[in-house]
């Protein structure tokens, strides 16, 4: 699929709209209308560009925000639920469990660290594979060790 610059820009704007937390969330149809693309083409082009549907993107965006707030540890699970624009604690917990594989409160406990450093994110939010090389088995580096200089 070849996207023109204007359509590309509109879809990027739509992604920002979908990530916004509002008291009255925009429907997917509203977002499509605001970006000037028919709902059918909007959903199809958005998924082709970003790898997820607009609806899936919004859910993932809310969960990402929830994980950040939970990991920082300054909000209760109920407050986090409201902060990310969800009105039902039951629906929020169920969604979180299905997508993250744990409950919001268990996630918050697992992200809690003994020492909170202002301005530094909890380790849960920066897996940093490259910085965790020390945990890899030796086989992961065999490729590099056995490589002859070019």
């Amino acid at each position, binding site marked *: 699929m070849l996207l023109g610059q204007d359509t*590309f820009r509109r879809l990027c704007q739509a992604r920002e709209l979908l990530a916004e937390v509002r008291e009255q969330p925009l429907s997917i149809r509203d977002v499509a209308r605001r970006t000037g693309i028919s709902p059918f083409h909007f959903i199809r082009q958005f998924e082709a560009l970003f790898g997820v549907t607009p609806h899936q993107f919004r859910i993932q965006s809310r969960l990402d925000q929830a994980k950040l707030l939970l990991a920082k540890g300054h909000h209760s699970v109920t407050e986090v639920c409201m902060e990310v624009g969800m009105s039902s604690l039951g629906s929020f917990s169920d969604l979180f469990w299905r997508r993250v594989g744990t409950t919001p409160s268990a996630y918050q406990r697992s992200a809690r660290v003994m020492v909170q450093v202002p301005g530094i994110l909890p380790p849960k939010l920066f897996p940093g*594979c490259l910085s965790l090389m020390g945990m890899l088995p030796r086989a992961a580096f065999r*490729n590099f060790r056995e490589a002859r200089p070019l």
Partner: protein
Amino acid sequence: MRIRLSSIMVDDQDKALKFYTEVLGFQKKHEIPMGQYKWLTVISPEGPEEVELSLEPNVNPAGKTFQAAMFSQNIPMTAFEVTDIQEDYMRLKSHGVVFTSEPVEAGPVKIVVFSDTCGNLIQLYQPL
């Protein structure tokens, strides 16, 4: 000092592995569980085998902001060299890959940019 490893941030490692192997045609080299994420690398079947690309989970909010901004500004995160850019352009388009332009000449190379569906724009280039 050698360059044997490079990395790119992806929003979903499983989705990325599928795209980078089944669509782009790279091969999985390592998939080692590390907590809820994994050490995941791919190599090109055209070599060199010892050069790996790590598909890193983009979890850090700062990384997400950076990645989204680069994407919106139409700036590729990395570039892969190809032998026949027109052929790869047609092949990837047939897989539903989204391009932001057709292949164009830019000085000593011909380039084209596509979305990897994992939050990045990638540039292909063919030296002329």
